[in-house]
């Protein structure tokens, strides 16, 4: 697989597998809402809150920053504007919308309205269901969202330096060293 195919596949993943055709018109209505928040480019504040809530449930604040501590939501917002094509942007926003609708149908509240504990309980189920399966070219929204969140998180300075063994100039390569439970993934500047 060449580099471009990999990138395209990434966008295909965003095509939500649980997208119900009947909801498409509703969604198109949603997209007309223009964000008033100056720093957000594509997401409206509700969408942003949902992105923050999901990404911080996947990557919460521990001794190291959470996803939103390192502004993963803003990066996703930027990608939606400048990196993903229109179709992918639409798929993402539809996916996000449906994620919330599913959450409301199941729990009675939108995801960002849940307590931390409720968020974990709900997302754990969604995560096990979705990440536990094999997919072809099309994957559910959450699958892509999770991948995007994790990738974005570790591409930030704090996400990388505080969690990984960031070492851009390791010195001469050594083929075999001991590894134990404290060993972290070594990351350099290669993207």
């Amino acid at each position, binding site marked *: 697989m*060449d580099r471009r195919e990999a990138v395209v596949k990434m966008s295909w993943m965003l095509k939500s597998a649980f997208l119900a055709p009947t909801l498409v018109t509703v969604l198109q209505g949603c997209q007309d809402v223009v964000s008033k928040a100056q720093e957000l480019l594509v997401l409206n504040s509700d969408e942003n809150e949902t992105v923050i809530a999901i990404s911080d449930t996947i990557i919460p604040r*521990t001794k190291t920053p959470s996803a939103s501590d390192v502004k993963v939501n803003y990066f996703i917002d930027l990608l939606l504007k400048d990196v993903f094509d229109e179709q992918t942007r639409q798929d993402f926003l539809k996916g996000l919308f449906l994620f919330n609708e599913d959450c409301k149908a199941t729990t009675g509240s939108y995801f960002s309205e849940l307590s931390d504990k409720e968020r974990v309980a709900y997302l754990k189920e969604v*995560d096990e269901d979705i990440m536990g399966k094999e997919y072809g070219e099309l994957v559910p929204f959450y699958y892509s969202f999770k991948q995007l969140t994790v990738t974005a998180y570790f591409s930030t300075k704090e996400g990388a330096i505080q*969690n990984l063994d960031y070492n851009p100039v390791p010195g001469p390569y050594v083929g075999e060293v001991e590894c134990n439970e404290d060993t*972290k993934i070594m*990351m350099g*500047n290669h993207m």
Partner: protein
Amino acid sequence: MEKNKYDVIVVGSGVTGGWAAKEFTEKGLETLVLERGRDVKHIEDYSTTNKAPWEYKYRGYDSLEVQEQYPIQSIKYNFDASSQQYFVNDSEHPYLNPPDKPFRWFRGYQTGGRSIIWGRGTFRMSDLEFGENLRDGHGIDWPIRYKDIEPWYDYVENFIGICGTKENIAHYPDGKNFLPAFEMNTAEKVIKERMEAHYPDRKLIPTRMAHLTKVRPGQFKGRFECQSRNMCHAGCPFGAYFSSNSSTLPAAYETGKLTLRSNAVVESIIYDAKTNRAIGVRVIDAHTLETTEFFARVVFLCASTLASTGLLLNSKTSRFPNGLANSSGVLGHYLMGHHKNIDGTGILEGYEDKIDRGHRPSNLTIPRFRNIEGKEMDFFRGYSISGSASREGINPIQVGIGAEFKQKLTKPGPWKVTLIAYGECLPYYENRVELDSEKKDKWGIPLLNISAEFKENEMKMREDMRAQIQETMEVMGLKNIETNVGTHIVGDATHEMGTARMGKDPKSSVLNAYNQCHDIPNLFITDGSCMVSSSYMSPSFTYMALTARACEYALKQMKKGVI
């Protein structure tokens, strides 16, 4: 020195142009190197080399704007925000191809050309390759054999530095002064042992690459040992891999005999019919569009296969109505590339108490094992398989959320093995480049129209490539084996070759055994257009050796007064 007059003009500053510059200037000749792109000075112009991912607005992603402007270049494995400046903007440098025959032309227009972003694999072709056209009747015979090029491989090796291991494989000649190979990691040692125990005819060895793994004092002036950053594509501040910028051009500058002119688009070659000589070149300034003529006793075309060929095609004269030095009619034909995009992955279970240290910029190779003693397969020629093993990095595609998951993400995963096949392409007359009769670039030069495809032989080979990757991974004892067969687009492997091939007979070739045009004795072409067959390996080392060899030959002829 007379204005605009030099001893030698070299068109292009990439791997071959750099070598021509070094060889001629070191022999005292005033040498003009014409580079169509901007100047990139070693170290000082590697503006991205120390940048971290978070210092780029879109980090590892390409913005829609970049996708639109670099639709071809951005496919390349080493294209990203850190290397973008070393790839051409496709929208500014178009070319044409028939809709049913896509072609990928990866280019870098700057000092050093693609040598800044090359893959660095450094292989010697053997008599298996040099003799193969003659043996199986595809294409014409190479006018040289290994013994002719061997001293030049040695010569180039000593200057550029090649790491590798001596293997004593008859059809895979060892270097004479290899630097130590990059170490193999734990998993690689395991799969090597298993594979070699199963296949007596195959070896899994460290890929021979133009990297400095050990530098003795005084050796490789100004270049240092690899620090395993794996940031080669952004330019190496240690000069640890070979590029024109780090190696040959500094050597040429040191002589005081080099003039490098940037933004110099060579439009055509000036031919003098009376003397039958290429007496100079016409250059268009890339920015001002001003035209200047430069003159020299000898002209070396080192502009890359398609560019050099296009230049000859665009230099028509009454004696050469179909392109300069094209009395044979083969100029532009027999375009070859390598075919790839067949790979496999698998997991080696266990050994998780071991890991490697550093971001190794190299991998491993299984040299060709098909059709060695004769044709044993339902296809001609062969392929190599390269690969590597590494502990899996951050893997979001797994079940889990929260603090525990976050922690788990930072731990090295299992040993993941990747194998990738890389195959030879036969020379076909109908795979060709020509000048488009209508469309021109912004310098008024006709666009190249490139038409090439892989055919039945390559398709049969690809079936075997996939099957052998599968089988090899089974033999290695891997789990979760997956193989993928991707696209087969000519140019995808970068190595375009063969459109001004060498040969003994001037009726069927453009160049003689010394890369000298049969038709015009002071005109040489030493880039990939000279290739008579493609072999299955990175050809850059062969180009460098042929260039140094051609320079010596040209110097002798100049001394004799022949040219």
